[in-house]
């Protein structure tokens, strides 16, 4: 899909702050100079085209006592698809990227408890026979979200 100027304005404006009120699309549309039906239609089209991967509340598992952990595996190239399927099959794997390095698979574990991270990482090691390197954040230098479309 080709994004027009209005789509880009929507993306830039609505990465946070979507209203908590009965007619939130109408309220958000008004600030963008659109009407409710057009905003809904555009969001839906962008969601279906994959331009928007998700729309809604983003929960911080850490604030609920849960945990996130960045992990990496050095996957042999000839086993990449097989290992990818095995790793992605774990519901604790929230996202997973292929990257350019000997450690070529990087994924985030999201679990409901601190202990769940180790359990899930160990289970992935058992399922793949490969070391799961764990890189929990020691400190986040948080500055907000600002992907400019």
């Amino acid at each position: 899909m080709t994004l027009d100027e209005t789509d880009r304005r929507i993306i830039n404006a609505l990465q946070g702050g979507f209203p908590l009120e009965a007619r939130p699309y109408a309220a958000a549309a008004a600030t963008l100079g659109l009407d409710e039906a057009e905003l809904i239609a555009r969001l839906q089209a962008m969601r279906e085209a994959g331009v928007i991967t998700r729309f809604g509340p983003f929960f911080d598992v850490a604030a609920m006592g849960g945990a996130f952990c960045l992990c990496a595996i050095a996957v042999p190239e000839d086993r990449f698809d097989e290992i990818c399927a095995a790793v992605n099959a774990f519901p604790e794997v929230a996202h997973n990227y292929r990257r350019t390095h000997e450690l070529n698979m990087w994924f985030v574990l999201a679990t409901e408890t601190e202990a769940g991270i180790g359990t899930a990482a160990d289970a992935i090691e058992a399922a793949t026979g490969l070391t799961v390197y764990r890189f929990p954040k020691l400190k986040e230098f948080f500055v907000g979200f600002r992907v400019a479309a």
Partner: protein
Amino acid sequence: MSIAPETRRLIEACQAGLPFVPRPYAALAEDLGLSEAEVIERLGALKAKGVIRRIGIAPNHYKLGMVANGMSVWDVDDAVAEELGQRIGALDDVTHCYLRPRALPIWPYNLFAMLHGETRDEVERKRVRLREMLGDACRGSDILYSTAILKKTGLRLKKGAA
């Protein structure tokens, strides 16, 4: 851990995202057997507590033309890593910045900074600026480009787990 059962149900109801209907919270409320006002109030309370970080769009960088996504990583002297992380994380070019443990010998890097651009050249220019900022405290660096999204979902709670 203790996620209250009603909070868990609310999170589960939101996992696929908000429905694209004029009254999305009323639609959630119907599924949950709550009133629209109760759903709005509970989501507001979770947002105030920081359990909900934000409500809105998660864009796909690739589809926006930001096809070069680099995880720049730096081996920075531990004595100054936090201070430098603050400065790097405040740069407009850096979307996320973290201090993480090393995994020697395969992984000597402790500071992670995400850089995005329309081309790798653009990302490399941003990386040079970071390198200059880190100065003598930096003993080595690399950049890992993402070449495929293998999976991307939000938080998934195990059904029924408490």
